[in-house]
């Protein structure tokens, strides 16, 4: 028994020492992070937790906002990487004591979060707020604009794609990839299929799904863009509904893909949005972070590095970059969907979509 007690005591001691070590390391990091500060920072040693996507988005955010803020204020900004579904679930489940202070969500998730009272209303007193486009000032702070259009393999598709209806061409049958359901891309695709084929989504839902099923058999339902673009390069997939920003990123890497803003009914407006958790303990720091994100510097970095179109009207970029963005007057051409209706029916649509996938 004595031996067992000694063993447990040693284990506890080792864990305590490890924890102290970690804490000391953090302290040291904080101190060095504050080396450039003036010592009177209002956010000294505060930790802000931000939920955001990984990959190139994380890199550009870290470079343009996180590191400069940490150096200036001596604060610590922790990025929690992942998809929006986990973030949103956490935000709702932890509404009284949120583990994330700032969250990046999509256009409808952010609006819903604000409407449901789990995220704060926007604060128009932020110095960069007035520079945002009008549609970027509601339902959270608009971070970047994207257009959902069509990416296709221009080496294997014989005629250029110009409208959504072109996806139903015979040569593309069995070669169109959709994303997994539910998600922005498919929610939007269901709605735009109805518009493209003159169907009333409210009364002809079955016909809309039958129309989508005509595209099958589907080669894949993607949830990973590397996989999608690899299969597009190999010709397993010839076309897919995808965002302009992501497409341009892969096109830059040399994939034989062309991105188009199709007509009938047009490219669909998507917006990455930032919200601040309702009961955050670091509200002032969270607002400072958001203000930097929507400022010209960060928005320009997003546009130039990863082709995410700015929500800030004051951003100017070179013509070469502008071609790859939804920029200036282009913003007005994007179609805004009735997200309230779509969200209301997402459950039922998912069931119907699952059955369609099963039959393909």
């Amino acid at each position: 028994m004595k031996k067992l007690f000694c063993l447990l005591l040693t284990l506890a001691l080792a864990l305590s020492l490890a924890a102290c070590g970690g804490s000391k390391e953090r302290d040291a990091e904080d101190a060095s992070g504050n080396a450039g500060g003036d010592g009177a920072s209002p956010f000294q040693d505060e930790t802000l937790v931000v939920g955001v996507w990984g990959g190139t988005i994380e890199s550009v955010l870290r470079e343009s906002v996180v590191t400069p803020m940490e150096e200036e204020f001596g604060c610590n900004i922790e990025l929690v990487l992942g998809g929006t579904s986990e973030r949103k679930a956490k935000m709702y489940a932890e509404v009284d004591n949120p583990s994330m202070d700032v969250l990046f969500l999509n256009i409808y998730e952010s609006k819903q979060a604000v409407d449901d009272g789990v995220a704060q209303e926007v604060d128009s007193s932020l110095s960069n707020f007035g520079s945002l486009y009008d549609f970027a000032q509601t339902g959270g702070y608009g971070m970047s604009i994207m257009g959902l259009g069509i990416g296709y393999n221009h080496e294997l598709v014989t005629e250029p794609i110009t409208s959504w209806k072109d996806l139903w061409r015979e040569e593309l049958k069995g070669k169109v990839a959709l994303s997994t359901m539910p998600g922005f891309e498919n929610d939007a695709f269901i709605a735009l299929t109805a518009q493209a084929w003159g169907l009333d989504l409210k009364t002809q839902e079955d016909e809309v799904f039958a129309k989508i099923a005509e595209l099958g058999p589907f080669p894949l339902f993607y949830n990973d863009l590397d996989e999608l673009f690899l299969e597009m390069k190999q010709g397993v997939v010839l076309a897919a509904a995808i965002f302009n920003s992501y497409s341009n990123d892969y096109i830059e890497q040399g994939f034989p893909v062309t991105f188009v803003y199709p007509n009938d009914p047009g490219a669909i407006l998507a917006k990455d949005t930032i919200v601040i958790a309702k009961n955050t303990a670091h509200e002032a720091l969270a607002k400072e972070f958001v203000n930097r994100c929507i400022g010209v510097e960060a928005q320009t970095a997003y546009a130039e590095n990863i082709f995410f179109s700015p929500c800030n009207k004051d951003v100017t970029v070179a013509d070469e970059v502008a071609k790859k963005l939804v920029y200036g007057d282009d913003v007005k051409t994007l179609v805004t969907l009735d997200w309230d209706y779509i969200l209301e029916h997402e459950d039922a649509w998912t069931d119907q979509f699952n059955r369609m996938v099963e039959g393909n």
Partner: protein
Amino acid sequence: MKKSVNKANALLIPLTLVFVLLFIIPFFVLFYYSFLTRSSGQVVPSTPYTVSSYLRFFEDSYYPRVVGRTLWLSLLTAGICVVLGYPVAYYITKARGYWKTVLMVVVILPLVSGVITQTLGLYGMLTSYGPVNNFLMWAGILKEPVEFLGTTTGVVIGLTQGFLPYMILTVMNAIQAIPDNVLEAADNLGANGVQRFFLITLPLSKTGVAAGFVLVFGCCLNSYTTPLLLGRGKISVIGTAIYQQAMELYNWPFASAIAMILIALVLVVFALGNTLPGVGGRKKAVSG
């Protein structure tokens, strides 16, 4: 004697605490959630209590079909693992020295690498333009590439690759437990190699086969990553259905109800497995 039993019990305390904290309590939370109502605009469900989630599962034939598909995939995989795993386990048991160590490392290595790494590796192998198709076409077995990904075949290949080590290790344990003098006695009584295998080794190792079958079957029933990646979103199983409801649609009551049904299925399978000859009791196995 009593003192040593107490010490042994004390050693179980940390594991018991972890088990209660990470399994028993979440199990009851899930069970409770499955009877709650999903509130509009909320992730966390609330009262009134209802059985509507269970009713929905059985009303919509889609979900029973998902269960049926999962059971079929799991049975098929477990069966293939028995066929492929037994000879390997037998061979490794008979191997000696350095060669045995090498074989053991080869079997255990996939378990160390993790399911995502394994599955992504297999994904690259199984694409229509990957090495497997290229080899089959080079060998003249195929005239044009076969699509493994997005099919039941692809998922079964992935599950088999992932869970085969469990079968091999379980069967190996059973074969190693057969006393040498039993086999020597068979030799002395004039049994040849084939007779010795079918009359002695196989019957005495069936406990391991049954345990391995149940283990692989249970693992397949819970699988998520392999069907998701190799199924290309086209092969829905219980794991992917639960994820879709819980994490994408935030319908926790329905996701909990599906999880409860899954747990019930696993319990039924283990109970049935326990009734198999040689599995229920050690005495019976030894005497068999």
